[in-house]
């Protein structure tokens, strides 16, 4: 499956190490070489996508519960809080994984399997993040999403997640 996604493990580790050295020198790949920085980010995105995908059941449960319970403003606030708890845990998991990769090298990636469905799933999770950020209870906030718009967006994304499962 991994052959469908361009993930050069050796190059990834090389860039990861380079960035670490630069960080210890008080700078970063972002400051020194934008092209390589974006390349490193692109590998991080692949791993990040898979981490979100590994927790698909938990994300789906939370969304289903929100849609089923229909608990208005408080339900939306609870959903946002709990969604971000999982999401942030996953982002932290990538940081931990990268530290382990730096310590253990390519061995850490030996059994890594990237599911091609993880790319789309992650894009949908990022869309939920966007909806959560734009949710507003301020009627004067013309840039925000009302509760109805928010619920509608979550419903649409959930349908896409279901399709992602079936493909």
């Amino acid at each position: 499956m991994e052959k469908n996604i361009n993930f050069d493990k050796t190059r990834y580790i090389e860039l990861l190490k380079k960035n670490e050295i630069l960080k210890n020198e008080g700078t970063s790949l972002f400051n020194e070489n934008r092209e390589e920085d974006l390349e490193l980010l692109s590998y991080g995105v692949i791993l990040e996508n898979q981490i979100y995908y590994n927790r698909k059941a938990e994300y789906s449960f939370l969304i289903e519960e929100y849609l089923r319970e229909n608990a208005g403003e408080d339900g939306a606030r609870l959903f946002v809080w709990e969604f971000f708890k999982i999401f942030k845990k996953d982002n932290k998991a990538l940081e931990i994984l990268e530290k382990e990769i730096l310590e253990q090298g390519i061995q850490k990636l030996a059994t890594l399997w990237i599911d091609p469905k993880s790319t789309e799933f992650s894009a949908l999770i990022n869309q939920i993040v966007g909806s959560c950020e734009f949710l507003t209870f301020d009627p004067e906030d013309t840039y925000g999403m009302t509760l109805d718009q928010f619920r509608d967006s979550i419903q649409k994304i959930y349908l896409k997640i279901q399709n992602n499962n079936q493909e």
Partner: protein
Amino acid sequence: MKESIQEEDKINGQRKKQGKASITLMIKDDIRFFAPNDQLRDKYHHAPDLDSPIPGTLGDTELARLADPSLYRERLETFRNREILPEAYVEQYGRDLRFQVLNPDTKIIEGTLGANREANGGPPKIEGYHLYNDRTGFNAFFDKNGNRYRTGFQANRSQRTDIKTNNNAM
């Protein structure tokens, strides 16, 4: 930092007299950025990104206990109780945000929030400023309509790519 705090004290003194909620002020590169406390409260789910203290009732242990699906109503009731997030926690979150924004590694990037959402038929993007720190990965966004704080979060890899290549998040 000192300049921001002194001016913030003056502003909040006036706002208190007017019966208005207080704000957090950040002055960076001669630009004044404002974070109203009500907005900080609405974005409190990002407080862990700044290692801001979280009230025990909202902490990991409590939510883990309440994660049982049959306890949805209990989770909701706990969350409804506004007393679980005292103002002091919100104010600390504001101070932590200011510390991050004024960090010399935090750079101002003029750009947008929500261009991807707009492209997908969502609400219009917001023009403003990203205050992005590549060392910590934290990004705060302030709109150009009064330099008001909209959100701030630890950007994931996908969001970092968007910020760096398109000056946009989400």
